[in-house]
């Protein structure tokens, strides 16, 4: 499945911003495409709690919960959005993806001043999207979240810490969930030591190692065409 809504292969114009629109409940959020490094489908998404992105481990965090919304629902549409820029790495669990969108910069308006709290630093603006509205996430804020705690940690460090002890997102996933889509399975799973009598599915999927796609259509959004 392609996330692209446009059919032509022309690079986005300079006055447009390419975003990946995702949903957290009824809230539509747009993540700047420049920081999106990959999208992981349901099979892994539901249970992975730490992913390794280009050699660096990062914890999977529920985006809705981080924003104070009801946490993501466990459905086959759930995804993990891998974000990164320079040394910052983040992995966010969302309810579903709605696709790539080239947004004319002139369509983006600031968050109304009535929102007078810290949310002004979460979103850089909003724009009309389909029959509703999408909020444009501030990439700086998104990538700065918990970065200090994870950017320097290696994968073995996290597994040695006991998994759940360093995680605030507990995946209450059904054992033996759906198999990951072969189309997305570019990475390999790294097996981790089974801890006590914990559910095997959690142990196996706790660490998901992802590698850069080699068959990308373009260099900007290699994750979009899988």
């Amino acid at each position, binding site marked *: 499945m392609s996330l692209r809504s446009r059919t032509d292969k022309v690079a986005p114009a300079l006055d447009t911003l390419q975003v990946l629109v995702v949903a957290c409940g009824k809230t539509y959020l747009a993540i700047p495409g420049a920081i999106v490094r990959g999208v992981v489908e349901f099979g892994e998404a539901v249970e992975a709690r730490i992913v390794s992105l280009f050699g660096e481990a990062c914890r999977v965090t529920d985006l809705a919960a981080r924003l104070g919304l009801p946490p993501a629902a466990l459905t086959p549409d759930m995804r993990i959005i891998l974000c990164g820029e320079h040394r910052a790495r983040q992995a966010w669990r969302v309810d579903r993806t709605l696709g790539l969108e080239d947004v004319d910069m002139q369509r983006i308006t600031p968050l*109304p001043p009535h929102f007078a709290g810290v949310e002004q630093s979460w979103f850089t603006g909003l724009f009309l999207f389909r029959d509703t509205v999408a909020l444009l996430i501030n990439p700086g804020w998104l990538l700065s979240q918990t970065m200090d705690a994870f950017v320097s940690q290696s994968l073995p460090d996290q597994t040695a810490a006991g998994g759940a002890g360093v995680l605030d997102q507990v995946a209450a996933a059904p054992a033996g969930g759906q198999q990951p889509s072969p189309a997305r399975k570019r990475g390999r799973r790294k097996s981790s030591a089974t801890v006590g009598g914990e559910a095997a599915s959690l142990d196996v999927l706790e660490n998901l190692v992802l590698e850069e796609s080699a068959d990308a259509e373009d260099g900007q959004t290699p994750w979009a065409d899988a």
Partner: protein
Amino acid sequence: MLRTAKRHGQTPEAAKPWSLVMFSVGGKRVAVRAEEIGGVYPWTEAMPVPSLTPYVNAVVRQGEEILPVFDLARLLMVQVSRAEPLCLRAKRQDGLMAVCIDPDVPTLHQIDAQAVRTASAGSPGVVGMCSIGAEDVPIYSWAMFGPTPAQQVASRGELAVKM
């Protein structure tokens, strides 16, 4: 002329009757000065916006326009009727807001300024009380919910630190 008016504790503004729009939210009747109302439209579904601003936690789309939603129902601790609620466009200094109200069509009333009583303390947003028909109705002002200049400065400082 002005000095005379001040001496008697009256201003030309105080002498004018108040034009009030009365409507209900979750069955509670409230009023707002007509100049603080920008119209009434059918309600369209709001999109929740993560927010730490009290009572402002959604936006609603009206055509090509996006309005922040002021949750008056939450303030009043009631629930708006789900059957075809209306959207009250509320005018505030920092821009229009949408307020979800009951389907009863708002009504316009002229109240003598002297009939407006002082609101009791502890009623946020209420600038006075008046009697409309047999009911005592609180008069709200959206401006009372806006950030004070001091809060605006503090908020900007907080954002600078967060960024």
